[in-house]
């Protein structure tokens, strides 16, 4: 699979959920409900079940996450090395955008 396909920026409307899921999994493996609660806690965003599994399905298909054995009908997912790299790259780009935006805002405020 081409590396471009693993660029989260190309996820379209799934980019947001995908970034949140990968960021949550960066802490360690989590199942669907744990992901929902963790994302709600750190991002104040509640991913609806359909949206969550749509993104999980896509991320798993791209090899960015991996399913672990199910426990009590809950299947945890973990971040793969490719997923960690894709998240790292995406967040670095986002950070650059944030820094430029904040810097320009502060310059505008000073004038």
């Amino acid at each position, binding site marked *: 699979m081409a590396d471009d396909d693993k660029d989260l920026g190309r996820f379209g409307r799934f980019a947001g959920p995908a970034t949140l899921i990968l960021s949550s999994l960066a802490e360690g493996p989590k*199942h*669907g409900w744990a992901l*929902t609660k963790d994302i709600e806690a750190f991002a104040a965003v509640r991913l609806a*079940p359909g949206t969550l599994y749509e993104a999980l399905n896509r991320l798993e298909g791209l090899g960015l996450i991996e399913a672990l054995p199910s426990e009590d*009908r809950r299947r945890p997912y973990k971040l793969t090395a490719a997923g960690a790299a894709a998240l790292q790259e995406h967040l670095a780009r986002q950070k650059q955008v944030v820094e430029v935006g904040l810097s320009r805002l502060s310059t505008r405020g000073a004038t």
Partner: protein
Amino acid sequence: MTPERRARRLLRWYPTAWRERYGEEFTRLLEDDIRERPRSWHRTVDVARSGLAAQLEQGPLRRSRLVAAGLMLGAALAAAAVLHALVDPHQEVRCPPGVRPQRACALIPGHGWVNPAVLTISLLGLAAAVGVFLSPRLRRLAGTTAILGAGAAAVVWVATSSKPVDPDFGQPVFPPNAWTTAEAVLIALAAVGVAMVVLVSPRLSRLRLAIAGLVLGAALAGASVPHLVHDPGGYCNTFGIPYGGFRGCLHSLGPAWVEPTALALCALAAAGAALLLLAQAATSARRARSSGP
């Protein structure tokens, strides 16, 4: 209803392959979500949207089924809309007094929206569309429902037709070209809907259902011609097709029966379709007996 049951119900939006892979864990997540937020329209809409998206990724058969479901629902809603707009026995067309010809008449809907026939047709269409789309086991029922729904629509249409008379222009006010009317479009949509269901239903005898659909569609079309062309009372074209505007409609519309020819054709078509379906059911039962233990 328990969270488990509600979760299982929501899972039905997804295709079989998806359910096999994610079903257990997804229903568990839904159960947790339902326990925390027992009522959530957002959740239902999200699951439905995501399930439909998963269905669309399943390949051409699913897309065909979606098209068929859309057509059936569209045909049913069109039937309901046409029934409401054209043959609602409670509606009125009000024109300004003393103006000849009356070019600025308004259509007053009356109580058409509570017309049980409109609701019935809409619900039949919805049930058939959902049945076709979601469950292969319901396809037979959905096909039957679609045909019965179209037959019911035809009978209701014939039975509740109102015939306003043009006071200014004499008779007949309706143009002889019946194929340009909304009714013709409706009939074509219904026929296409039935045909699409037949095409995407591998478990049904396609030939027999196709014949049933075609017989029904052709007879409905045939029924519309004497109704529209030879209607001795004329017809008020509330859609403004093709002579533009509401001019020349009566102030109040009275109930009326159309020609026995149209009624007979519709009854014949419904009977023909029912006979074909019964023959299909009998053949299926015979096959099941012969292939049994």
